[in-house]
């Protein structure tokens, strides 16, 4: 079952955390800003499939990664998926407590890097 065919149609609405913006402005990622923006746009259009999107496990259940390149993932949550799969307790974001959630909200938590 593909979520994309069942759930809200794109585009989703982007929300960026302070951590995401700080990382984006850092020396490590600033030079990649254009390609990171392109990947964010792709993810906003197809959040369940784009950029080799994967649901993370264990302590990060409820969050997803999508890749800028092989070693640089973007970590994000999709409000509608969080509600549908009951991940609010795991994610525990500001939107998780809302009575009328904005299901098309997509929160980019951070840009990071694999360990090697």
């Amino acid at each position, binding site marked *: 079952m593909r979520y994309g065919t069942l759930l809200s149609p794109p585009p989703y609405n982007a929300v960026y*955390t302070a951590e995401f913006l700080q990382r984006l402005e850092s020396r490590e990622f*600033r030079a990649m800003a254009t390609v990171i923006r392109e990947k964010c746009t792709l993810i906003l259009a197809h959040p369940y499939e784009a950029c080799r999107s994967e649901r993370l496990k264990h302590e990060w259940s409820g969050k997803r990664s999508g890749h800028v390149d092989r070693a640089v993932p973007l970590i994000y949550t999709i409000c509608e998926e969080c509600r549908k799969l009951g991940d609010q307790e795991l994610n525990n974001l500001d939107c998780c407590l809302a009575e009328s959630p904005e299901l098309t909200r997509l929160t980019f938590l951070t840009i990071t890097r694999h360990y090697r």
Partner: protein
Amino acid sequence: MREERTEEEQLADEALILALYHLVQNRTGEGAVGDRLKAMKLVFLANYAMFSERMKGFNCTFYRWEYGPMSNDVYAAWDQLKRAGLLDEEECISVTARGAGLASAFIGDVLEREENRPFLRFLDDTARQWGRKSRSTILTSIYNMEVAPLGEFRASRIRDMPLTAHLTEALDSGDANATLHIEPGWMETLALALNPESTRSIERGADDARAGRVVRGDAVWDAFESPAV
């Protein structure tokens, strides 16, 4: 002979080492696996058991060295697991509470899947058979093991082998009877969990979203637009 491991193989090794040590600590009821020598030999026993059945779980290269089989891959895995706060080492190597949580989830989600159960059995057998034994008992048993070094047909006792004789290597999937299957979401989780900076950054991002420290929409990109030339 292939000694270089892919990133996926390194992640699988690190996850299996953590799972093995977690099972050893659970089996023995002790708060530690043992000293470096014992911790190294336990990985060898599990790795060799898989390798001799051509089961592609561990991918470490072990060779005969002064105190029996050793592997630079295991040293590298220890360093990485310690940096990530999953293993601790003072006099002995032990799994931290965070490491135990990750190992337990990895065992439940990955190793207990039907196709991966044989790999879990190798780890569990090693933990059960050797976990409580002293390092000298383990070392004596290993020295007396009869093994054919890579590239040779005739087995000899590890004790009698020349230094640097290779005992295991990374198998290619095509040469293996079975391959450990780790789904991409778990591979991704391991790659992030083994980088302490990633772990902290994800936590900070979640804290920001919890506290409402967020910005909406595309305006965030304005500062990064290249000026017209």
